[in-house]
């Protein structure tokens, strides 16, 4: 089940909220959340629910044992067991095919590459559970005595299958003690509606342009043109942010409606002035996971320059691999390693010195990210090179009547999409509210409040219109 589906909105979320708010007892409310979450997860194939339960049980058990034992070596032993089970399972389900394919290419063995279906959300909930056990080991959070609450934490449908990667310590207290205010619910409603509109209207609209002009099938590559590829990849750049951040918006919004306060996962990444800045703003929960659980334990930047770069290499190799079992994702991760290293070595500070260098920094970052998405989009290396060649008019003509027409036909839409990836709306809203309040222009202030009140319902209606003719539209990050 995906958030951007009519079934989820009307047949799942609506009754879930109704039942949730009819009950007053916190425990009963948690049980409602758990039951709905398990149904939500099982919807994509009930068999994999078992995997989720096994991972939760292992994590619950090892965390409890880590806390219970007084012997450091035993604690470490339980932690190693947790890591082996979690990483082993994710390896089996996500990377077996990839490694077998590589072995076959190199050694001609195995003869048959196993086809294992990737369980939905395995990368997200596995990382959540790992972070929980490691945090218990580090003494940063207490182990949860109740198994079903660990299951609730990992399976919570808000974030179980496409993030954000919520740390247990973020919600540990709120699992048992949540206070829900009218403000929380209203903010949650607003956030959810904005996210749904971002996905259903903007991201799906951008996908139409991207798929048309920067096609994924080899058959269509013969008809691509340079200008079309640039516009198509630009649309894809917008799509991937709108799509993924929309999911986080909806997750954060739904959490807020029932009293959970998840951390932000995006901070307008396309406004970044350096590549390093970009990664502070993009998929924050993943970046911080790798920082806290890989980079820093490896020594971070505390063990000399050489070691720092090795640590960075490891992190970016893993970041690429986490995104998919394919060489293009690894290449994508290493591509960022190169630019981050260059920034650290040569020009990172230069880009922050003056207004001009800051402006150049924005342009440079956008170009790096843009070509990064080209690497990301094409898993097939032949297609990738064909696209890169085509973008510079090699092997394909550059001019494209389709691209020109597509641009004119969607010009207002694309402007709206660009505005949506920038903090224009947010800043305008904050400024107007602040100014009208400061100057005691209460009529205007309340007019803004009225817009805030009506907008979510309006966005919901518009999103439903967009979803009716679009029966299947999975989020891009589901595949990870």
């Amino acid at each position: 089940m995906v958030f951007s589906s009519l079934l989820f909105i009307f047949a799942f979320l609506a009754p879930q909220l109704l039942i949730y708010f009819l009950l007053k007892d916190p425990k009963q409310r948690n049980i409602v959340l758990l039951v709905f979450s398990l149904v939500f997860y099982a919807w994509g194939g009930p068999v994999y629910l078992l995997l989720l339960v096994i991972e939760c049980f292992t994590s619950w058990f090892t965390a409890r044992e880590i806390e219970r034992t007084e012997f450091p070596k035993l604690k470490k032993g339980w932690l190693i067991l947790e890591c082996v089970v979690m990483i082993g399972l994710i390896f089996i389900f996500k990377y077996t095919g990839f490694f077998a394919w590589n072995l076959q290419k190199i050694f001609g063995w195995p003869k048959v590459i196993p086809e294992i279906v990737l369980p939905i959300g395995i990368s997200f909930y596995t990382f959540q559970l790992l972070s929980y056990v490691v945090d218990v080991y580090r003494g940063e959070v207490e182990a949860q005595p109740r198994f079903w609450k660990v299951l609730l934490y990992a399976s919570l449908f808000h974030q179980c299958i496409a993030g954000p990667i919520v740390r247990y310590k973020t919600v540990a207290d709120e699992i048992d003690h949540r206070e829900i205010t009218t403000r929380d619910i209203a903010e949650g409603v607003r956030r959810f509606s904005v996210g749904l509109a971002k996905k259903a209207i903007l991201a799906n609209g951008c996908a139409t342009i991207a798929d048309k002009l920067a096609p994924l099938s080899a058959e269509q590559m013969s008809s691509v043109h340079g200008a079309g590829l640039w516009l198509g990849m630009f649309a894809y750049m917008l799509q991937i942010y709108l799509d993924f951040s929309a999911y986080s918006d909806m997750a954060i919004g739904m959490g807020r409606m029932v009293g959970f306060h998840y951390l932000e996962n995006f901070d307008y990444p396309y406004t970044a002035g350096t590549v390093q800045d970009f990664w502070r703003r993009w998929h924050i929960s993943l970046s911080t996971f790798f920082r806290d659980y890989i980079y820093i334990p490896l020594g971070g930047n505390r063990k000399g320059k050489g070691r720092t770069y090795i640590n960075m290499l490891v992190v970016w190799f893993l970041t690429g691999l986490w995104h998919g079992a394919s060489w293009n994702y690894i290449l994508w991760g290493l591509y960022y390693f190169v630019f981050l290293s260059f920034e650290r070595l040569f020009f990172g500070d230069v880009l922050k010195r003056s207004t001009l260098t800051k402006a150049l920094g924005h342009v440079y970052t956008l170009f790096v990210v843009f070509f990064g998405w080209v690497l990301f989009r094409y898993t097939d290396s032949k297609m990738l090179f064909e696209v890169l060649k085509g973008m510079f008019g090699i092997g394909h003509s550059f001019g494209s009547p389709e691209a020109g027409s597509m641009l004119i036909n969607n010009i207002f839409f694309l402007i709206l999409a660009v505005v949506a990836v920038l903090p224009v709306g947010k800043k305008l809203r904050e400024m107007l509210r602040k100014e009208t309040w400061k100057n005691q222009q209460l009529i205007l202030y309340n007019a803004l409040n009225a817009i805030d009140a009506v907008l979510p319902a309006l966005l919901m209606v518009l999103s439903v219109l967009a979803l009716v003719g679009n029966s299947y539209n999975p989020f891009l990050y589901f595949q990870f």
Partner: protein
Amino acid sequence: MEQETKKKQKKRTYFFRTLCIMLFSAVLALGFVLGCILFPLRPTESQLENRKLTQFPKFTMESFLSGDFTSGISTWFADTFPMREGLLKAEMNLQNLYGFRKDSISAIADGDDVPDIDDILASMDEEETVPPETSETPETLPTETAAETGTEPVTETEESTTEETQTEPESVNGEEMYRMNPQEAGAVNVKDLVGYCVYGFNRAAADQYAIHVGKVAELLKGKARVFELLIPNNSAIMLDDETKAAWKLLDEKKVIQYFKAMTYQQSKEVKYVEIYDTLAAHASEYLYFKTDHHWTMLGAYYAYVCYCEQAGITPHALSDYTVVDSGPFLGSYYKTNGYAQLQDNPDTCIGYEPVSTNDFSFYDRDAGTMRNGKLVRNMSEFDIALKYQGFIYGDTAYSEAHNPNLSDGSCCIVVKESFGNCFAPFLIDHYETLIVIDYRYNTDSLVELAWKYDSPDIIFCNNLEAISDLYVMEQLGDNCR
């Protein structure tokens, strides 16, 4: 005082937050009632998209465990959501605001190169190598088959550019209407609020077509006259040269010459009905719809006149027919290709009732029997998107009409896809029996059918785009035996 203002504002803020929650809840509640309670309101087919909507999935333990069952429920829930048609139209209107949409170029022509027919003719052993440039038909008998000349069809496969789906009968004002979906256009561009087909030549399909037509002509040599009538696309006839060049459109006249040459190679019995130049001469008239991939009945009329010349028949004047005005029409470019801007430039669907009779009967798949109907119907009361179904009830596998004024045993068999629907009615005035076969649905032998009549005329009447698909050509091949 300030304290009091703050207190008042706090109350107002609380009010707006509550309003926000209530409005959101109202949308959720409405959607819940519509989606989960009012099951009878769920549509089963979409007129706008001309397709049957997804059915509720069948439960099996296997489909449940694999997730197919629940995935099917998700698709069914969205696909059959109550008021779907209205919501879809509203969404199309919204998308119309995305930019300037008077012109839309979604594709540049992409297909096989059209071989030079001189090369083909040179490969023939015959001395007489000139295919009928005009309407003349060579008198020589066939002496070779495709296999003998070494001109087996190209076997490369090509992605289908046409789709065909079928829908159930529907009822409007108590009158049941039988319809199947027309052939849907592949790539379409819009210029000045008119949709145009972007045709890509498929050589393998063209070769197959020629083989099938030639085979029928050979099998019925001396028994029936076989005519080939190829209908160019609207872009070839209606567009200016500059646009054709910009869209890299093929010269369809050259394509037709290729078909002619290939058919001639298969059988010299086939008589070719040339309509390209006639249509081009009347290009300023309303020959093709603006929002649909078909031609109008006026376009079909000019083709009928060309056919009559070739067949030695005196055609009726246009003024001899009773005009049937079905009113505004929004066709496949609007509803299937999704060019919402075309609603600002709707078509008018005009039909011409045959002089002798307007009655005919057709095979109703669902009932499994023949049913009576009108060759040309007034579709005013039907949905704006369905007007083309007014010609011989859309695409039915088999239909026949009998001229009450003739008893000479004459018979005409039209083998067609949906373009033939508004062409066939003109012919009833000149034959005692008119039979129309849509080869995409018919499975019976065309040759056996022809043998039931004395000297029938068989007309293969098809649009170039519609026969550029190998699967469709397989279907034609199933009939041509």
